[in-house]
C-alpha cells in the first residue's frame, strides 16, 4: 500500500512539475512577445520624435532664413548697410546703427554683424567689435555661403564670453560677387527651439544636437544631473561644453562618444538602437539618431531603457505576480484540500474508530501483504499489544504464530489469508491467538475479505475469546462424566442389589434344598437326589450369573481355547430355539471350515444368546426371521472405524457371527445408546445385556458392528480375530489374484459414499469402468444416459427416495435384460426373497470383499478367468 501511494505521489509531482514548466515556458514566450511589441513601439516613438525634432529644426531655421531675408529686403536696412559698406562717417554710422537696431531688435534678434568679404567684422552694435576676426564657426558658415548656400545657420559658438548663434546671408553685388556678409545674432527666443529641441518624451526622453566633434549643440534636459556629476560647471549651459561621450574614468576628453553619436557621425544616416547603450550621463538608453546636412549636426533622441520599458515592466510584473498568486493559491488550495480531506478522513476515522472501539469483539484489518491496517480497543485489551506495536506490522507473526498445541503455524497455511485467496469468509473456532506476554487465547474468529470493486484488498478479522467457553465446555463435560460415573455407581448399587437379590434367592433355593437333602438323605434317597439336582441347577445359575457379571466388568477369567464359531453356533441351536417365540423362524448360514478363534466359549455363547434374545424381542411376538450367519472377512481400518469396541483393533482377517432380525429396528439415537449399561427399551430386564456383549467382544480384541433401520430390522455382527497359526491353509487360499474382466460400464448405486467408492475401486480393479449414483432417481437418470454401455448395475437395497427395490422394478421395466446385482447389509436369503422370480441377477452381502464381489459379478457375467 505504501509503495503505491509513493508512486502516486511521485507521479503527481512529475505532472505538477511538467505543468509548471509548461506554464513558465508559455509565460516566458508571452512576455517575450510583449517585450518585442513594446520595443517596436519604442522604436517607432524614437524614430518619429527624432524626425519631428529635425522637422521643427528645419522649420525654425526656415523661419530664421525668411526673417533674415526679409530684413535684408527692408529698404532702410539695405540703405544702412550700403552706407556702412561705403565707409560712411561716424554720424552716418550711428544713424545706420540706429536704423538697423530698430529693425533687427524688433524682429527679436539679439544683434547684427556686418562682415566683409574676408569675414572680418565691419560693423555691429558696438564699435569695439569692428575689425574683429569672425570666430571659427562663422568662418565655416561663410565658406558654405561662398559655396552657394543662400542662408547658413551657424552652430552655437562662444565669442567674447557669450554664446552666439548667427544666421548669415551673403551680400552680393550685381555680378553676384560676395561683397560682404550680414549676420544676425539669434535672440534666446529664436534659439530656443534650436537650443532646446522639442523632442521630450516622458520623464527621461530628450532630443539634442551634436556637432561633428561630439559636442552638444543644444541644452541638455538634465543639466542639473550634469552639474552634479561635475561634467558641467555651476551656472553653465551644456551647449558646447558637454562632450556626448560615455562616462568613465580618466580624462573625459578620451571617453568614447556614445553609440548614437558614433553611428550618426560615421554613417550620416538615420538609425535606432533598441539593444541599448549608455548615454552621456551613463544611463542605459534606447536612442534614435540622424545626421542633418543642413544643420551640419546629428539630431539624437533618447529615452532611458527603464522608462521605455516601464509599461512592459509593469505588464511583466503583473503577469508574474498573477502567476505567483495563482501558484501560491494553487498550492494553498491543494494544501487546504489535502488538509480538508485529511480532516474529513480523520472525522470518518473517528466515527469508525468509535464504532469499532465500542464493540466487545476484537476487530482488526489486514492488507494483502498481511500487515495490520487498523485495530480496535478490544483487540489491544484482549491481546495486550499497543496499537502502534501492531499497525503496519505483519500481524500473523505477532498473534497467530502457533497452533494451540504450540506447533508453529506458518503464514502460508493460515486460514485467515485463505479468505484473501478464496474470496470467502473463514470461520474457525479451533485456533488460538497469542498475547504479547506469550499467553494463549483460544479464539473463535471470522475473517471477511474486503473488496474494492472486484479486487480483494485485504480482510477484516473479528474474534472473541472462547477460552472461557472452552473451559466451561470442558467443565461441563467433566461434570457430565462425573454425573454419569455417579449414576453408574448408583446403578451399580442397584445392580449389586439386584444381583445380591438373585444370589439370595439362589442361596435360599440351595439352602432349602440342602436342608431337604439332610432331611431325606436316609429316609428317601431318591427325593434327596432330586433335591441335590436342584442344588446343582441353582449353583449353575449362580455361576452363569457370576460369569455374566464378570463379562460385564470385562475382567473375568477366560477359558480360552480354539473355537470354530460355526460349530459353536450349531451346538447352540436347541438352546436358541427354546429362547425365542414360536412365531419366529431361525435361519442358519454357517460357513464351513471357518478358521478358529481363541475365545472363551461360554462368553461367546452368552453373546449369541443375548443377541438372539434381543432379536426376538425386537420382532416382538409377530412372525419374523432371525438369521445367524458366520463367515470370514477381511476387515480394514475404515471398516473397523465404524465398529464398536474396536479401539486398538488392527485390520486383518476376522471371523464373524452375524445375527439379523426382521424386527422393529432401531433409529440412530437408539443405536448410540444401546451399549449404555442401563439403557433398555424393554419393559423387563436391566439392560445389561448389550454392555455385557460389548465387554465380551472387547475382551476378545474383537469388534462389533450394528446395522439397523427402523421398521426393517437390525443386524449385529461381532468379529473376532482369527488365529493365523491355526489355519494357514485357509490364509493361503484367500489371497488369490482376482481375474480381470474385459471392460464395460458398471453403474454403482449406494447412498453411502464410502461404499460407493469402495465398490467402484473394486470394479475398476477388475477391469470395469464405473459410474456412481447416490440414490435410485439419480441411478435411473444415469442409466438412461449411458444405457448402451452399462453391462451391470450394482445397487444397494436401502436408499432414500427411490430404494433398491423400486430401482430394480423401474430398471426392469425400462430394460428387461438389465443385469442387476443387489447389495445389502441384510442376510441374503431375506433380502433375495423379495426378488424371487423377478430376475435378480445376483446378491452380495455387505460388507463385501473384493473376492465376494468378484464372485457375484463372475456369476452374473460369466468369465473373468
Amino acid at each position, binding site marked *: 500500500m505504501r509503495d503505491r501511494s509513493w508512486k502516486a505521489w511521485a507521479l503527481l509531482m512529475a505532472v505538477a512539475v511538467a505543468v509548471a514548466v509548461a506554464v513558465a515556458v508559455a509565460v516566458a514566450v508571452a512576455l517575450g512577445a510583449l517585450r518585442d511589441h513594446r520595443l517596436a513601439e519604442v522604436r517607432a516613438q524614437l524614430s518619429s520624435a527624432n524626425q519631428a525634432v529635425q522637422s521643427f529644426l528645419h522649420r525654425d531655421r526656415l523661419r530664421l532664413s525668411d526673417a533674415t531675408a526679409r530684413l535684408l529686403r527692408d529698404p532702410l536696412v539695405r540703405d544702412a548697410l550700403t552706407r556702412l559698406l561705403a565707409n560712411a562717417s561716424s554720424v552716418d554710422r*550711428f544713424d545706420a*546703427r*540706429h536704423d538697423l*537696431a*530698430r529693425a533687427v*531688435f*524688433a524682429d*527679436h*534678434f*539679439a*544683434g547684427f554683424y556686418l562682415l566683409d568679404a574676408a569675414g572680418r567684422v565691419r560693423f555691429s*552694435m*558696438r*564699435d*569695439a567689435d569692428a575689425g574683429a576676426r569672425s570666430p571659427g564657426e562663422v568662418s565655416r558658415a561663410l565658406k558654405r555661403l561662398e559655396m552657394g548656400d543662400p542662408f547658413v545657420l551657424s552652430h552655437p559658438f562662444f565669442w567674447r564670453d557669450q554664446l552666439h548663434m548667427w544666421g548669415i546671408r551673403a551680400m552680393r553685388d550685381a555680378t553676384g560677387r560676395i561683397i560682404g556678409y550680414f549676420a544676425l*545674432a539669434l*535672440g534666446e*527666443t529664436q534659439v530656443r527651439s534650436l537650443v532646446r529641441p522639442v523632442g521630450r518624451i516622458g520623464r527621461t526622453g530628450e532630443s539634442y544636437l551634436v556637432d561633428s566633434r561630439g559636442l552638444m549643440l543644444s541644452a541638455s534636459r538634465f543639466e542639473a544631473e550634469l552639474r552634479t556629476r561635475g561634467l558641467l560647471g555651476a551656472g553653465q549651459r551644456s551647449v558646447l561644453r558637454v562632450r556626448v561621450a560615455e562616462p568613465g574614468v580618466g580624462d573625459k576628453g578620451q571617453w568614447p562618444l556614445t553609440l548614437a553619436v558614433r553611428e550618426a557621425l560615421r554613417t550620416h544616416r538615420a538609425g535606432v538602437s533598441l539593444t541599448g547603450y549608455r548615454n552621456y550621463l551613463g544611463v542605459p538608453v534606447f536612442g534614435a539618431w540622424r545626421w542633418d546636412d543642413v544643420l551640419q549636426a546629428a539630431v539624437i533622441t533618447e529615452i532611458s531603457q527603464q522608462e521605455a520599458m516601464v509599461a512592459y515592466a509593469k505588464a511583466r510584473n503583473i503577469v508574474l505576480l498573477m502567476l505567483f498568486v495563482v501558484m501560491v493559491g494553487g498550492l494553498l488550495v491543494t494544501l487546504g484540500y489535502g488538509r480538508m480531506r485529511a480532516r474529513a478522513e480523520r472525522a470518518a476515522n473517528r466515527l469508525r474508530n468509535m464504532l469499532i472501539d465500542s464493540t466487545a469483539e476484537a476487530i482488526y484489518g489486514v492488507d494483502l501483504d498481511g500487515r495490520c491496517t487498523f485495530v480496535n480497543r478490544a483487540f489491544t485489551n484482549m491481546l495486550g499489544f499497543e496499537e502502534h506495536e501492531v499497525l503496519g506490522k505483519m500481524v500473523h507473526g505477532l498473534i497467530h504464530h502457533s497452533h494451540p498445541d504450540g506447533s508453529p503455524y506458518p503464514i502460508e497455511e493460515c486460514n485467515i489469508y485463505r479468505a484473501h485467496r478464496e474470496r470467502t469468509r473463514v470461520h474457525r473456532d479451533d485456533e488460538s491467538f497469542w498475547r504479547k506476554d506469550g499467553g494463549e487465547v483460544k479464539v473463535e474468529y471470522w475473517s471477511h475479505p474486503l473488496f474494492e470493486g472486484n479486487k480483494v484488498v485485504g480482510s477484516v478479522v473479528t474474534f472473541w475469546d472462547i477460552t472461557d467457553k472452552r473451559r466451561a465446555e470442558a467443565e461441563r463435560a467433566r461434570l457430565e462424566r462425573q454425573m454419569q460415573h455417579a449414576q453408574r455407581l448408583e446403578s451399580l448399587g442397584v445392580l449389586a442389589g439386584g444381583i445380591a437379590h438373585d444370589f439370595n434367592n439362589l442361596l435360599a433355593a440351595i439352602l432349602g434344598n440342602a436342608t431337604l437333602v439332610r432331611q431325606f438323605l436316609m429316609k428317601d434317597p431318591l427325593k434327596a437326589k432330586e433335591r441335590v439336582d436342584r442344588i446343582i441347577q441353582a449353583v449353575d445359575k449362580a455361576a452363569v450369573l457370576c460369569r455374566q457379571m464378570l463379562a460385564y466388568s470385562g475382567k473375568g477369567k477366560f477359558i480360552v481355547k480354539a473355537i470354530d464359531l460355526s460349530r459353536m453356533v450349531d451346538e447352540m441351536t436347541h438352546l436358541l430355539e427354546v429362547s425365542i417365540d414360536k412365531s419366529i423362524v431361525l435361519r442358519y448360514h454357517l460357513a464351513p471350515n471357518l478358521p478358529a478363534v481363541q475365545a472363551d466359549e461360554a462368553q461367546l455363547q452368552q453373546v449369541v444368546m443375548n443377541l438372539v434374545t434381543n432379536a426376538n424381542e425386537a420382532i416382538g411376538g409377530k412372525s419374523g426371521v432371525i438369521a445367524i450367519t458366520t463367515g470370514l472377512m477381511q476387515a480394514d481400518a475404515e471398516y473397523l472405524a465404524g465398529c464398536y469396541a474396536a479401539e486398538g483393533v488392527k485390520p486383518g482377517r476376522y471371523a464373524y457371527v452375524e445375527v439379523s432380525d426382521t424386527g422393529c429396528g432401531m433409529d440412530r439415537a437408539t443405536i448410540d445408546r444401546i451399549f449404555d449399561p442401563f439403557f433398555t427399551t424393554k419393559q423387563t430386564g436391566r439392560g445389561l445385556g448389550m454392555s455385557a456383549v460389548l465387554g465380551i467382544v472387547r475382551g476378545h480384541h474383537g469388534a462389533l458392528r450394528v446395522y439397523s433401520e427402523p421398521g426393517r430390522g437390525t443386524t449385529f455382527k461381532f468379529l473376532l480375530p482369527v488365529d493365523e497359526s491355526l489355519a494357514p491353509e485357509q490364509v493361503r487360499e484367500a489371497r488369490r489374484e482376482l481375474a480381470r474382466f474385459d471392460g464395460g460400464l458398471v453403474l454403482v448405486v449406494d447412498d453411502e459414499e464410502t461404499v460407493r467408492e469402495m465398490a467402484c475401486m473394486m470394479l475398476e480393479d477388475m477391469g470395469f469402468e464405473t459410474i456412481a449414483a447416490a440414490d435410485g432417481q439419480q441411478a435411473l437418470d444415469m442409466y438412461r444416459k449411458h444405457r448402451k454401455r452399462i453391462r451391470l448395475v450394482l445397487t444397494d437395497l436401502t436408499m432414500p427416495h427411490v430404494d433398491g427395490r423400486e430401482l430394480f422394478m423401474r430398471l426392469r421395466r425400462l430394460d428387461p435384460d438389465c443385469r442387476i446385482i443387489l447389495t445389502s447389509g441384510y442376510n441374503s436369503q431375506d433380502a433375495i426373497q423379495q426378488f424371487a422370480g423377478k430376475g435378480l441377477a445376483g446378491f452380495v452381502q455387505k460388507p463385501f470383499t473384493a473376492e465376494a464381489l468378484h464372485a457375484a459379478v463372475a456369476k452374473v457375467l460369466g468369465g473373468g478367468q
Partner: protein
Amino acid sequence: MKRALLLLCLLLPVASWAETVQLAGSTTCLKIVRAAVEEYAHLHAGTTFALSGGGSSAGIARVLEGRTHLGMSSCEPTREERQRLLAAHVRILPIARDAVVPVVSRAVFEGGVRHIRRAELADIYAGRLRNWRALGGPDRAILVVGKNAYHGTQRVFMRYLGLDRVPERWLIELDDDRDLLRLLRASDQAIGYVGIGYLDDSVRALALQLEEGVVAPTPDNIRAGRYPLARTLYLLVAPGAPHEARAFADFLRAPAGQAIVRKTGFVPLAQ
C-alpha cells in the same frame, strides 16, 4: 442607470469645452502672468490660457470690447478710462506694484553714469541730449530706446518726463521689453526703460536723482512711495468672464499668486 451614463457621456465633451482663459494687454504684466499661468496649470490642469501682449491700452480696449476675459494694465487708467471701465462693470483688480526704471547698457553704467535727473532723462528722450559725455559717461552717442505708445510703461515714463510725444528720429520704439533689453545688452551706448520685473544682470538700472537725493528703485522705496516712477499693475476682469478667469484672478491676488509676483521681480501688493 443607462440614462445617467448617457448624460455623463454628454457632459464629458461639455466639460472639455471649458473656456480658454484669454488675457491681453500689458507686456509688463505678462511676465507675472506667464509665470502665474505655469504655476496655475499645475494646480488646475483643465484650464487653458491664451496670452497676448499689445500694451496696457490694448488690454483696456479689449476688455471693454469684450474681446478678452482679463485685461492687463501696467498704468493707472485715465479718468476717462476708469469711467468707461466702471460703466462696463469691469472689475479693476490690482495685482502688483511696479516701478518703471530707466536702464542703460552696462558699458554706460560702468562708464560712470549711475544716476540721472528727470530733466536729463527728458532731454535724452526729447533728443536734446545726444552724447553720454554730457552726463559724465563715455564719449558715445546715446542710443535711445523706448516702448511704443500703447504700453503702459511708456505712458508712465513719458508722463514723468512730461513729454507728450517723442520724435521718432532718435527713438527706437520696441514692443517687447525683452527686445528692449536685448538691444541694451547688445549695445554699449543705449538707454531704455522697463518695469523692475524685467531688470536683469545684463543691463543696469539708473537711480533717480531727486531733490531729496538719489532714490534707487528698491522694493522699499517703491512701496514707500519714495520712488516716483511707481505704478500699480492691474488685472481687468470682464463682466462676462468665465469662472476659470475669475479663479485665476483670485489666484493671482492670493498669497500663492503674490509669491509669484515677488519671484518674477515685482513688488507684491501687501506685505
